[in-house]
């Protein structure tokens, strides 16, 4: 089986993100970049299939600026077999629908049986690429996938999981893996360094122009703090005071 995992490089989760000088983008100086968390789960799900059946080939692709090569290197170090970078002037700003059709071209070239995407990238948080890719391919899409064992695909729904089967190629949008995404091993890192990462020009793929929202302004979320914190004293009395305050001051009861 061949699995293609689509990943995105984003600011690391632990980074404090700041709005840039233009007031409508994020300041990129000093940012540590990483594979988006849901994409890491997708990587882990794919690599677990390879653990179970070593004949499985795991390919990985990203669309992004040239620094995204580091995310691919990381994916190779985790255990992916090959990686493809799609880049170009429009790579950073491309919307979900354009990305979906560009990735569909890559899928047709690579020929995987299953494509995995993360539920959403942790930067724009749109969660559109999986749907756009499935639509462009005419493949079914199963979302919120948390487990894939044997031929069973478990997708989380409210109150539990639906178990599905795919009868042909499919796109799975991954929300979690049972095990935490693995760290690259030292031999994995050494091997990844030697691998060629072919590059494709986004403009040469059938991306086309697709409408997407434009960011007009960005700001930090409203500041919080200055709350009433009881640092010592009788906890039970504080509980009583807060219960009353929730009703009388905060009016949320």
């Amino acid at each position, binding site marked *: 089986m061949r699995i293609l995992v689509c990943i995105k490089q984003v600011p690391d989760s632990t980074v404090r993100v700041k709005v840039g000088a233009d007031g409508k983008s994020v300041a990129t100086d000093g940012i540590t970049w990483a594979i988006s968390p849901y994409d890491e789960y997708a990587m882990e799900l794919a690599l677990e299939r390879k653990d179970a059946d070593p004949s499985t080939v795991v390919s990985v692709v990203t669309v992004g600026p040239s620094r995204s090569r580091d995310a691919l290197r990381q994916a190779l170090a985790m255990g992916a077999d090959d990686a493809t970078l799609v880049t170009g002037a429009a790579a950073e700003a491309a919307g979900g629908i354009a990305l*979906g059709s560009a990735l569909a071209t890559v899928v047709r070239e690579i020929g995987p049986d299953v494509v995995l995407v993360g539920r959403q990238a942790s930067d724009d948080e749109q969660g559109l690429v999986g749907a756009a890719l499935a639509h462009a391919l005419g493949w079914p899409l199963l979302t919120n996938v948390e487990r894939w064992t044997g031929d069973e695909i478990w997708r989380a729904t409210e109150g539990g999981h639906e178990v599905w089967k795919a009868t042909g190629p499919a796109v799975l949008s991954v929300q979690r893996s049972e095990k935490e995404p693995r760290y690259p091993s030292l031999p994995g890192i050494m091997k990844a360094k030697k691998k060629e990462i072919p590059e494709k020009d986004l403009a040469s793929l059938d991306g086309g122009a697709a409408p997407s929202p434009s960011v007009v302004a960005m700001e930090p979320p409203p500041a919080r703090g200055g709350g*009433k914190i009881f640092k010592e004293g009788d906890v039970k009395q504080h509980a009583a005071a807060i219960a009353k305050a929730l009703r009388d001051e905060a009016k949320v009861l």
Partner: protein
Amino acid sequence: MNVLVIVEKKDGEPRRVSLEIAAKAEELGTVTAVDVGGDRLDPGAAASALAERAKAADLVLVGATPFGRDLAARLAAALGRVYASEVADLEAEGDGLVAVRTMYAGKVRATVRLPLPAVASVRANAFPLPEGGAPPKTETVHAGGAQKGVEFVRFEAAKESGGRVPLTEARAIVSAGRGLKGPENWKMIEELADVLGAAIGASRAVTDAGWRPNEEQVGQTGKTVTPDLYVALGISGAIQHLAGMSGSKVIVAVNKDPDADIFKIADYGVVGDLFEFVPAFTEELKKVKKGA
């Protein structure tokens, strides 16, 4: 503008978020509301069933539930429309719309312009529910079956999940972390949640440890929540957790560690033993709710 509101039903009743967006849609234009009732709906089949109607609308609004988010993205993809997910505010401007949504795991609030036609999924509690307003008249669109190429096999219910309001729509949430020490201590959390009519949330440490089901996880790789009241018990406040809940209106935090980051965003906090706090708080809330 012509607005199509897709009403999601749960146990035969429209979900609160659907009513919120239907009320908001009335401000924006001429509204058509359809519902896609039924359990175990395949969002792919639902998107196909709704595509023609969505095509005729300038704006399609869907509540950002797990089903709704999925459906909205598929409709945007199928129709090639401008799309914004998990919108927290929405206004008409010029011949388009301006939406507010969080990005970078809640660390940034972005204002985005959406030229029409567009599709948006909208977060619960983004718009007020008018009191005494009649639910919108809806036409039912039947969306049975599944997408081509996949087959539904069975449903596996989560053991712990029972009868509570979904996290993303809850007006109150009681959320607990590693400070609870073990899954056997959740009874007091449930009692507190019962008094508040609250949903139960958890930190990632707790869901990773298997103490609670994954669907209760609040934070970057879990749910983003926006309740009126968020009670954080034994949660230190990792940046990924704060990203998922700092949009709550009022935050109450209890933690042993006076330096816990959760206190930096709390409106009310107690540095102390939550095993002492929680039962007392539950009793006090009962009294206060009775008017004492």
